[in-house]
């Protein structure tokens, strides 16, 4: 299915990451955004608010992030593609509703333009400190999908992918930008609508009698209906059965939660996305995501110029984590170097998959700016020393 040309601003633009994210959402078919504007994500909703009246979308500036993150779910059940946009402090407030979207299997996108925290932290400066929160921030067992763009072009391309994944798996998708990528201006090429692949929501169209809204087929993703179409539906955050009615039994809990987790885990090979460079002969692999995938490049080039066998694995989809690939690499590389603009988050995933078979070296950064390539270079050099 191709994009609706109404929302597609085809052409070559010189645009920042925040605006490119807005354009990606509109191209993907998003027509409802609720948000409580917060630096450094404000430009995303500014552009949405400016453009939506011309393309038939609705933007609501809500009273807070809690309301924003629930309003989008109402919109989704009304049959619309919806998104909310925030940064650290607002993201923290949205955690409860990420869980609600997970258990009610509501397709929606949460954009988090990360700034340095905790709390109000450094509002105008970059960090990657919300990566574990994205995965584990809501209580209970569930799975989400998260993507991490490294350029304005990717803010456009991957926002479309975020919507597509959200619709395909009926899962909240978290779009993990950061201040640097959000405020960076670069060329963004928006293709014509007919070249943009869009995944539309799979709707149930069968008989109303006996309809079970949470009954899933082999792919574990139930077909959806929208409110007002005459189907009997009940949407609740309580553990529910296939009819959607609360069921407080151990059996219903086991069945529902297992399916919520399995629909992502069993499809992980299709969802996982990463880019590799010079990994085949590598002794050390630098694992990066987001803006760090760019700041690491000068360090990797410098190390290779000095004869060190360094590869680069960059996560595009961060959650689910590419466990299989890291495990396979751990069998033969000496070390992984993991630069992050936090004091250690995704490095724990690398360590888990490396399972002691290869060294894992974190290059931490407290946030406020990006890494200096020399710090990453020093870590690469260090990783090749000794055993």
């Amino acid at each position: 299915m191709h994009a609706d040309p109404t929302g597609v601003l085809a052409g070559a633009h010189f645009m920042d990451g925040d605006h490119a994210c807005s354009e990606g959402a509109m191209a993907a078919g998003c027509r409802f955004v609720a948000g409580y504007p917060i630096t450094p994500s404000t430009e995303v909703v500014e552009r949405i608010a400016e453009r939506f009246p011309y393309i038939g979308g609705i933007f609501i500036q809500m009273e807070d992030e809690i309301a924003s993150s629930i309003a989008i779910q109402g919109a989704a059940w009304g049959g619309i593609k919806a998104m909310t946009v925030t940064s650290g402090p607002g993201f923290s407030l949205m955690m409860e509703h990420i869980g609600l979207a997970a258990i009610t299997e509501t397709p929606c996108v949460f954009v988090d333009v990360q700034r340095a925290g905790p709390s109000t932290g450094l509002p105008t400066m970059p960090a990657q400190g919300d990566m574990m929160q994205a995965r584990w921030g809501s209580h209970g067992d569930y799975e989400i999908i998260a993507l991490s763009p490294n350029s304005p072009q990717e803010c456009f391309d991957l926002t479309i992918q975020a919507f597509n994944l959200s619709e395909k798996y009926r899962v909240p998708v978290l779009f993990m930008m950061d201040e640097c990528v959000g405020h960076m201006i670069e060329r963004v090429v928006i293709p014509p609508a007919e070249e943009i692949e869009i995944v539309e929501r799979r709707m149930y169209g069968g008989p109303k009698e006996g309809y079970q809204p949470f009954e899933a087929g082999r792919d574990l993703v139930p077909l959806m209906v929208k409110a007002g179409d005459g189907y009997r539906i009940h949407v609740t955050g309580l553990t529910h059965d296939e009819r959607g009615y609360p069921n407080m039994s151990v059996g219903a809990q086991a069945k529902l939660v297992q399916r919520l987790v399995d629909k992502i885990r069993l499809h992980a090979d299709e969802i996982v996305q990463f880019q590799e460079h010079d990994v085949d002969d590598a002794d050390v692999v630098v694992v990066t995501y987001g803006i760090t995938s760019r700041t690491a490049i000068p360090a990797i080039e410098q190390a290779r110029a000095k004869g060190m066998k360094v590869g680069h694995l960059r996560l595009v989809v961060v959650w689910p984590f590419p466990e299989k690939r890291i495990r396979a690499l751990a069998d033969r590389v000496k070390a992984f170097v993991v630069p992050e603009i936090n004091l250690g988050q995704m490095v724990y995933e690398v360590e888990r998959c490396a399972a002691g078979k290869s060294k894992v070296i974190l290059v931490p950064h407290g946030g406020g700016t990006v890494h200096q390539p020399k710090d990453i270079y020093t870590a690469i050099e260090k990783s090749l020393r000794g055993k």
Partner: protein
Amino acid sequence: MPRTEVKIGGFGGQGVILSGYILGKAASIYDSKHATMIQSFGPEARGSACSAQLIISNEPISYPYIVSPNVMILMSQEAYSKFSPELASGGTLLTEEDLVVTRNLRKDVLHYSIPATRFAEELGKRLVLNIVMLGFTAAITNIVAADAARNAVKVSVPKGTEELNLAAFNKGFEYGLQLLKKEPVAAA
């Protein structure tokens, strides 16, 4: 062109950010180069110091921040005092002649100045001084082709002001070419 770092400085209201935006657009949309612009985030209301950082290169740009700027376009005294020490040795310094007194001018840089505000006033609108500076930059340095810059100016300025802005660009460009005939060629 290898990675070239550009810093534009002035006070809010002079069109510093727009200048960076137009240069970046010229390079990346109309000149098939790569450009990355970072806006300095701060109190950029009228009158306070502000700057735009831009990287232009023939190759994709990995590291997004400027490290050692090769070209500086400075339109206020404060920007000169604050930023000119960061200019790379051998770099090119472009200043607004009436707004910047180049005290303690570094010997290891190439310096060119233009009375851009005066030219802009002669054209009828002081506001276009940033575009005069852009034309001047296009003449003195090789960071952007003049036609690419003209195209970017045309689509980036408010509708109805295109002609005025192109005249401002050409004024700066011509002045730069004349100046180059008198002074050594800058290696940007």
